């Protein structure tokens, strides 16, 4: 009778388990950023972004149900993320490349407060 008998219905334990993991990861990342005695220096930003990515993957796989969906929908999301990565990579490469020149220019031509 039903045409959607093959649609995946997420069980409640999966939904609540995903939510619990997300809350746990949020607590970990806030705790890591606000306490003093576990510093990771230059690795802090990659670490928090990795935690965010795990959270994002949990949402995409279980809340958005990509884990049980047609592959095409996941491919669309992943391709948009690839283009995002391409965009960021080239912009940052460019910034890095010209950074020293911009810095030197600004140091030798500081914006005096009374200059236009």
């Amino acid at each position: 009778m039903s045409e959607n008998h093959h649609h995946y219905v997420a069980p409640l334990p999966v939904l609540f388990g995903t939510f619990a993991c997300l809350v746990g990861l949020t607590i970990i990342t806030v705790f890591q950023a606000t306490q003093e005695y576990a510093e990771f220096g230059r690795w802090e930003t990659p670490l928090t972004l990795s935690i965010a990515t795990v959270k994002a993957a949990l949402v995409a796989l279980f809340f958005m149900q990509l884990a049980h969906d047609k592959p095409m929908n996941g491919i669309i999301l992943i391709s948009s993320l690839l283009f995002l990565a391409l965009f960021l990579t080239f912009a940052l490469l460019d910034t890095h490349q010209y950074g020293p020149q911009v810095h030197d220019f600004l140091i030798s031509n500081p914006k005096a407060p009374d200059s236009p």
Partner: protein
Amino acid sequence: MSATAHADEHQHHRFQAHHFETAEQQFQAGKLGMWLFLATEVLFFSGMFCAYAVFRAAHPEVFEKAAEFLNPTLGAANTLVLLASSLSVAWAVRCAQLGKQSGLLSNLIFTMVCAGIFMGVKAVEYSLKWKEGLLWRGKFTWTDGAHPDLTSTHEMLYSFGLTLAGIGAALIVAGLILGAKSVGTRWAFFALGATVLGAAGGCLIGNVYTAWEQHDEQTHGEHSEVFEDAHALGLEEVAEEEVHAEEAESEDVVEGQTDAEAPAATVVQEMAAEYGGEGPKFPGVFFSIYYAMTGVHAIHILAGIGVFVWIVSRAARGHFEPNYYGPVEYTGLYWHLVDLIWIYLFPLLYLIR
């Protein structure tokens, strides 16, 4: 599903469009379309993430200092609220798939209350930053040691929260009166009222928390040294040379505004060293990005609230059932994406140390 089913016009679901062979085809086409839209949303936000990455790569110290003005507790609370709303949307889809009408409605209403709370907390954050002068670069007027008196802002937020509560209650009463004959109208008003009540709650709780925290902090004197180098100079009135894209539409820049006294060359050198010669308003660049990103995200929340009002109204009219629940799922996908973006915004803006 089969050709014979299609041959019989009366087999069609009442919401199946004529150009689809089957309800399943309609459902999958709608979902594909939604995912394509979500891809454009990712690319849309990528511009702002790129601005963030470039400015942070160029001036990491400015971001580290400026982020101290954001309240990680409020950000974390909003993260949890959004995660809870994502859970309830996923649960609402499950209820629609199983044909559980009351579960569908209550999960959708809970989602909208969460959306309201999020916006209420955001209102508290924006209002306090406005008062403190922690604004985008063109309007960045934070001065160290000034300690702006936030009492009036807290009082304003208190009355704003109470007003929202009144509006929310009025919307629910209006739903009972105007929607007496139409279940769809009634629940649309209920949904909107619940959202506004959630916003009232978020605003009042956030206000009480920040007032308490500020009172607690006054003895400790945090934040007092930040930006000292830039603002000890007394150069608040600095003409802006550039208008950043984020502030372009809202900002009238006064060109050539001058101060009488020219600073000593050493002072300029110090300033140049501190912010790469960008001037004392430069920390405002962080807040330009902050307002652009969180503001556009908040607009997405508002849009989601608008769509959910429609979804609740249709759900109340009994439109959704195991054979037809596409709109619930598509709206849910959109809501999850808004949650996803916040999952990245929160650590990138609030948790820089």
